[in-house]
């Protein structure tokens, strides 16, 4: 079974080669002449006011967690889609209830306005 994944292994090897080689080459070959002014952060001639990393709004978190929930739902759909014919009505009902419960959640988040970006 693992033979099926050989080309993915080759892909990973090539991809890591391509992504690792340039930075190494760059650091080996590139000239580095650093001095204090060059290294200092630059902000329109002022000293830097604050950290470059800005605090994100909590709304991003909400979007991400709602995404995860439905991502997981998709993960549950994959095996089902493959075997649904063999499982027949029982398998169909199993997924129907599963999706039904999540649809309640979907109605809730939609109506609450969690999908709006105010």
């Amino acid at each position, binding site marked *: 079974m693992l033979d099926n994944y050989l080309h993915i292994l080759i892909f990973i090897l090539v991809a890591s080669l391509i992504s690792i080689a340039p930075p190494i080459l760059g650091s080996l070959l590139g000239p580095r002449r650093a001095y204090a002014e060059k290294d200092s952060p630059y902000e329109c001639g002022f000293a830097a006011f604050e950290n470059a990393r800005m605090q994100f709004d909590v709304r*991003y978190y*909400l979007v991400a967690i709602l995404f995860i*929930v439905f991502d997981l739902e998709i993960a549950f759909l994959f095996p089902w889609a493959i075997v649904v014919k063999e499982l027949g009505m029982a*398998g169909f009902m*199993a997924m129907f209830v599963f999706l039904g419960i999540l649809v309640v959640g979907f109605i809730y988040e939609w109506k609450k306005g969690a999908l709006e970006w105010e």
Partner: protein
Amino acid sequence: MGFEKLLFYIFAAVTLFAASMVITRRNPVLSALYLVMAFVSSAALWLLLEAEFLGIVLILVYVGAVMVLFLFVVMMLNIDVATLRARFIHYLPLGLIVAGIMVFDMFLVLGPADFGLDQFAKPQSQPADYNNTAALGQILYTTYLYQFEIAAVILLVAIVAAIRLTLRHRPETKYQDPSNQVRVRKGSDRVRLITMPAEPVPPSLTATLGATHTEMTE
């Protein structure tokens, strides 16, 4: 088979390296990215166990969705790494002693005596047309039906809890509504420009305007 063993050691080494980088990096964003690396190499390990569906789900769900959440949360928090580190060093000796005892205990039980390679026969490898996903589906929706539906309820609770804890409406936000914008008709809905003769400003108003002006410059 020798080649699979080699692959296992490579991916296991990458996982361990990435995992130790996760807990030693100063910058939480870097930690999160190393975590991605750890997930990808553990997915490869699962694939070597012929659990292909789980390997792919690990990448789909953890790398695809959970890591996005991690990065958002990392960016959301204003962590002062320096103070955290000070406390960390302070508790390090105690932590090391406890961890050492735990590792020793675990080695006694989980060491080669119980978990050596000769204790477990190598499982038969599956034929090329074996479908792990289908095998999973065969039991997930029948034998584990009850647990499967409970999983749906847990996801539902996650939605409700997340919305309850973080969703706040902001009525003060102003935004454009394109569908209303395109419905604007010529005439009554549009801004009407009119010409008016200049009027003399009453003295009381000059005073207020002046006050506002000074406030603004402050």
